[in-house]
């Protein structure tokens, strides 16, 4: 009976749809961690970007302006992370928690300031799905992969781009080197701080896009629980995906499927448990996945190690 629920085109399409913010967030996290900085602010940055993107879209009437605003918010927050973790070299765990608290607080504060405390939340007309002519007609694969939001296509196109950048370009090599051995990078003439800063800017921008997707494609209004741990889950996906963009996408799709499954089970009433237990599923899955993949030794060697050239 449960299998019937799963093996439907709609389920797979939903899995892909729910995976998109995780794909974007995990890609963002890969950039930061490959450069040696843990972007633990991801949860708050995603929320703040979602809020700003929604507001921009609401007032301008342009969804794409909203996307741009969310990405810009992410970029600015990436710079804030860089100031704290790279320039000042502060503890990346505590910074991440502080940035998440601050960014979430800011998101709530400004949303309330702008939209007040009305009982009907303001909403926008979200992105429509864009069927790709021809491809969307393919049975099964068409509706699953080629009848999605424009942002979804962008997210999945970013994966090969990120992989190419990280592993095939000089700038990507520099980024990976500062994450593995900043001393080697510095003695090769690379500006470690600036390279890490750029990585965090990319990271923040991608996380910002994830926020935009949540508000402008997946849902049509902003709510305080819109991120609810998706940022944290991205951290686990990166470990699971061994810091490789392609594997991270695989992990994200798996989690999209778990999320889609729990939603299906909730709405279908196929099994009789409180829906909260189903909501719990993605977090339980994350915990289990972390336990299974924890021992792998693929983490960038200089992850979470601040670099100060002249510190004695």
């Amino acid at each position, binding site marked *: 009976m449960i299998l019937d629920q799963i093996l439907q085109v709609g389920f797979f399409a939903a899995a892909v749809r729910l995976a998109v913010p995780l794909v974007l967030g995990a890609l963002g996290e890969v950039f930061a961690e490959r450069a040696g900085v843990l972007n633990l602010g991801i949860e708050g940055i995603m929320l703040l970007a979602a809020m700003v993107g929604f507001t921009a879209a609401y007032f301008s009437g342009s969804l794409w302006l909203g996307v741009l605003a969310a990405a810009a918010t992410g970029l600015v927050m990436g710079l804030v992370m860089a100031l*704290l973790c790279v320039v000042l070299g502060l503890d990346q765990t505590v*910074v*991440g928690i502080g*940035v998440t*608290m601050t960014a979430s*607080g800011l998101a709530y504060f400004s949303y309330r300031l702008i939209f007040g405390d009305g009982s009907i939340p303001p909403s926008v007309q979200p992105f429509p799905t864009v069927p790709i002519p021809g491809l969307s007609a393919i049975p099964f694969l068409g509706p699953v992969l080629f009848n999605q939001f424009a942002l979804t296509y962008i997210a999945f196109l970013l994966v090969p781009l990120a992989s190419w950048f990280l592993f095939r370009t000089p700038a990507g090599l520099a980024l990976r080197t500062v994450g593995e051995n900043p001393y080697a990078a510095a003695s090769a003439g690379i500006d470690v701080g600036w390279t890490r800063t750029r990585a965090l800017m990319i990271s923040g921008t991608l996380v910002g896009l994830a926020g935009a997707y949540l508000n402008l494609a997946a849902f049509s209004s902003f709510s305080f629980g819109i991120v609810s*741990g998706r940022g*944290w889950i991205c*951290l686990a996906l990166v470990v699971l995906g061994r810091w490789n963009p392609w594997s991270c996408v695989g992990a994200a799709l798996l989690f999209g499927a778990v999320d889609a499954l729990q939603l299906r089970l909730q709405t279908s009433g196929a099994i009789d448990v409180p829906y909260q237990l189903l909501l719990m599923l993605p977090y339980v899955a994350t915990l289990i996945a972390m*336990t299974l993949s924890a021992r792998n030794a693929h983490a960038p060697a200089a992850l979470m190690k601040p670099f100060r050239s002249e510190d004695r």
Partner: protein
Amino acid sequence: MLRLSFERRDETSVVRNLMLPVVAVAASLVLCSGLILLAGTNPILAYWTIVKSAFGGKIPITETLAKASPMVLTGLAAAVAFRVRFWNIGAEGQLLVGAMLAAFIGARSELPAASLIPLMLVAGAGGGALAAMLPAFMKTRLKVDDVVSTLMLNFIILYAMMALLSGPWKDTTTGWPDSPDILGAAEFPNLWRGTRLHLGVLVGALAAVATWLLVRWTTLGFAIDAVGENARAAHHAGLDVQRVTLSAAAISGALAGLAGVGEVGGIQYQVMGSISPGYGYSGLVVAMLARLNPLGVVPAAIFLAAITAGADEMSRQTGVPVFLADVIQGVTLLTMLIALIFASHRLRIGWRAGRRAS
């Protein structure tokens, strides 16, 4: 290009150390006054309203203290865990475990009335301890990242609690997702008639002293610091790193669990979805402000409690969104972190000559 570099200070000054949190808080309040201005209010007025509504009279003061007590406990929980470098971000979940167990035991009429409160405290502390030892065990044995695992457990425990409240514990008469009320004998006695200054506040204060004694005067406290600062050297010196870490995690979780017991026994007399407005996360800020010193946790918790308690009234009077309190918490955590680096390092600012032409 601007270049900053840090030089380690060889000396540390007592005055500078004591001033750090004050400077951090001041910087945070100045930064956040920008938001108040955005909201169209005079920051001084807003802050004054917070101070007045947090400390202006017997009821406000005791309400602030009652709000501070769970923050003292979660702050201590974070302080003990961070000392051993166990990143317990899970005080929120451990608090909920304590609250659930307290509500469960507090409603048992088959138990002797006099045993209810002690049993609630013991069970809440024990449950919180177990909830913290699981991720600590996963960290020491399986090398699972503790930040993510404790965060995930927060969500898992929260949803488990919500399932309980909308399932077996559902109030059949009102239909609200609230647990049954605890018995009268399980309600914490008041320390001051006419206020909500309950036994839990005393528990928080005693816990602060006890944790200070533990950290400063016991071999376990010594071992916790040694393992936290250098686990490898501690192992070489013969300390059992895993046992020390698990002990610290247990103490940390127990303290957070007690915070939940206090909320159920002293304030709410039942469990509902909003039992904790993020006390677990506030505890992280409290611990950092206190520089992980258990005695410093008390003033730090009172400060944050005053901000959160006063923000409600401030919001009602001035229209500044109540979430200002959340921003202040986050910014204070960051300014404190920045203040710490300036306490141990001297900043050198220089300009780098132009980059290579090619």
